[in-house]
């Protein structure tokens, strides 16, 4: 990296967070001991152990579901929408008030740059609660009726810990359901801080229950007979297992799973913006994004120029301490994920693609992977077909719009896609033909509480966000 881009360290203070040595489960409004084997959560940037966290076993999950059922029957489903709304507004406000604390804690536990947790994750979390709060007393206008389902079991991933919690809890509560939520085992801390926020908001006990643990805890939630609704965000593999587990039951399910999004750049695209969009598409949140633009499809006539500009831009990305306010790319969330990224990248080498990575000094401790791109990638390569979930971009080329569509849609996934061109009619035609739930035209990785998000095909079913996001938590007007 050139010296003119050297920055003085600008670390955000950790003093704002108070991490306890150990955490229990949040059931019926109180923190209680878990009966499984407690596990440790680490800072992925340093491998420092942050806290010990309880694991919920089947009996703990059962307690949580019972608490949620009681709260549903006795309190939450009887409360008027207007009153439920006030609790959600309170939560939104407390999240704003404690925003810096949440952002710092999120970056410490997850490894994402403070710039992103501070400017994207936490503000969108607050906005999400604020948005759905307003629906609570307007459900009869939603088109989905106003009858809640009951107890929702929710399992969320580690890539946007608090944001995924908000996507699950805000619409569920607005619609009158109560929840049992399991955060990912590598990123439980902001969910547990959220439990404290529920206490501060005087949310009735049992409306929100947070149980920590790994796969077994998740399975116990999904298969619990008194759970009416299952919402999951995570891998397609686990999503399929959940779809099998609920077969033959009355449980309603929404699944938000993997992706392998094509980001399509035409020769008439505004290249400066397109380069920023490509970088944001794959390196935002270290590429730990299910809708990441992990396949760059660039029109052959501009491929050389795009690649040259892209490499130059990638070379200016600042990688390192997640809490440094100048950091663009933080740490990989876990050793396990780093292993998977390395393995798939090695498969890319072995299958004949050409690797290029940013030359930078990686910290000696923690989990790190430099921003990387592969050229000479064909449709058959595993790095073009499988979700890497890391800062690795596969570059393919095309000549005609039809070829771009064919390549973009040639995947079992269908979560998102990007199109870059100055021609309006081409944008609309591409948007129509792309089989994906979110199409970003001349932009990428934009999220908003009012905008539905979710996939086609094996990227799952159901939508989160917007009016459409209510459907997952209501009985519907007919069926």
């Amino acid at each position: 990296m050139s010296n003119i881009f050297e920055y003085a360290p600008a670390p955000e203070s950790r003093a704002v967070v108070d991490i306890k040595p150990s955490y229990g489960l949040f059931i019926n409004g109180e923190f209680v001991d878990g009966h499984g084997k407690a596990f440790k959560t680490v800072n992925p940037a340093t491998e420092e152990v942050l806290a010990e966290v309880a694991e919920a076993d089947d009996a703990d999950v059962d307690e949580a579901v019972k608490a949620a059922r009681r709260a549903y029957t006795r309190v939450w489903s009887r409360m008027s929408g207007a009153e439920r709304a006030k609790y959600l507004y309170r939560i939104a406000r407390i999240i704003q008030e404690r925003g810096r604390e949440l952002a710092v804690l999120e970056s410490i536990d997850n490894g994402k740059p403070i710039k992103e947790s501070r400017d994207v994750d936490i503000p969108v979390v607050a906005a999400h609660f604020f948005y759905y709060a307003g629906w609570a007393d307007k459900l009869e206008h939603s088109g989905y009726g106003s009858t809640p389902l009951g107890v929702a079991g929710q399992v969320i991933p580690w890539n946007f810990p608090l944001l995924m919690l908000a996507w699950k809890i805000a619409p569920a509560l607005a619609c009158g359901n109560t929840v049992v939520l399991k955060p990912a085992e590598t990123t439980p801390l902001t969910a547990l801080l959220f439990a404290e926020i529920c206490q501060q908001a005087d949310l009735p006990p049992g409306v929100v229950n947070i149980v920590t643990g790994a796969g077994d805890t998740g399975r116990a939630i999904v298969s619990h007979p008194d759970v009416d609704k299952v919402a999951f965000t995570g891998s397609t593999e686990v999503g399929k297992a959940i779809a099998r587990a609920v077969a033959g039951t009355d449980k309603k399910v929404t699944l938000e799973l993997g992706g392998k999004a094509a980001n399509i750049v035409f020769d008439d695209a505004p290249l400066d913006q397109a380069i920023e969009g490509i970088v944001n598409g794959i390196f935002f949140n270290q590429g730990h994004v299910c809708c990441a633009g992990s396949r760059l499809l660039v029109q052959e006539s501009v491929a050389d120029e795009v690649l040259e500009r892209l490499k130059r831009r990638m070379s200016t990305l600042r990688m390192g301490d997640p809490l440094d306010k100048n950091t663009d790319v933080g740490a990989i969330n876990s050793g396990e994920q780093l292993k998977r990224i390395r393995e798939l990248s090695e498969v890319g080498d072995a299958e004949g693609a050409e690797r290029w990575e940013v030359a930078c000094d990686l910290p000696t401790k923690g989990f790190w992977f430099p921003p990387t791109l592969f050229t000479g990638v064909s449709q058959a390569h595993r790095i073009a077909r499988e979700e890497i979930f890391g800062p690795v971009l596969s570059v393919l080329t095309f000549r005609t719009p039809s070829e771009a569509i064919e390549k973009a849609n040639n995947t079992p996934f269908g979560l998102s896609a990007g199109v870059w061109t100055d021609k309006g009619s081409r944008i609309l035609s591409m948007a129509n033909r792309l089989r994906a739930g979110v199409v970003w035209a001349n932009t990428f990785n934009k999220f908003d509480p009012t905008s539905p998000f979710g996939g086609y095909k094996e990227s799952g079913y159901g939508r989160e966000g917007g009016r459409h996001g209510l459907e997952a938590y209501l009985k519907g007007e007919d069926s």
Partner: protein
Amino acid sequence: MSRIDVRKTYKLYIGGQFPRSESGRSYVVNDAKGRLLANAAQASRKDARDAVVAARAAFGGWSTKTAYNRAQIVYRIAEVLEGRREQFEAELRAAEGVSAAKAKTYVDAAIDRLVWYAGWADKITQVVGNANPVAGPFFNLSTPEPSGVIAVVAPRGALLGLVSVVAPLIVTGNTVVVIASQDNPLTAITLGEVMATSDLPGGVVNVLTGSQSEIAPWLASHMDVNGIDLTGVEDAALASELEVAAADNLKRVRRPAPDTDWLLEPGLDRMTRFMETKTVWHPIGV
């Protein structure tokens, strides 16, 4: 001497044509009193796979027709059905043993249901899609699109039940492989004759007759099928097995509802269950 009837050979309806089952098998279909009505084709795994190929081939053209055009074609099915109503009334009386009045009620309702769904083709997007007021300078619009190829296990109602499950799927742009009621399959094939002469492109609706428990698992596990409607499945164990198989490629699943009263007016759910919401963003600037 009285004239000898010319009987009809009931075959399958795949890709706009009426092939026999490739397996060469047939099974006896009796009327309500147990007398022979006809031999129906007993579809095989290969027939089911051929039907999926036909449905996939038809999907691109059908789903990109204008909604107005799809509306006219579904309306056309109603017109042609109206013209052949005596035949359908007679078939229902023979197959299901219902009274003349009841048969007329079912045919009336089937025709009216086609007309009702036809009108939805160019309205469903307006009712279930919307603009989203995002907090930034972006155009943002959510619209519904068809899920793709949908497998359907039809309920017992040989005409009204069948129309009630197929019409909502095709009017939104999906293409369909439907397993007709095992006990009353003949009307489904006659309805195929109506569809084949209503400007409905071949492959948009494909009808299989035969054993539900034999054919449905192949469709539930088929990786090029996007959704499965289990409405007509009466065996709970089979329904679970099909839902498990459907998870292999995360098919959209509609769970069984064999006891539905098809004379009641439907809601939107039969359309929206097999539609995807697409959200398109674009910056607003100068």
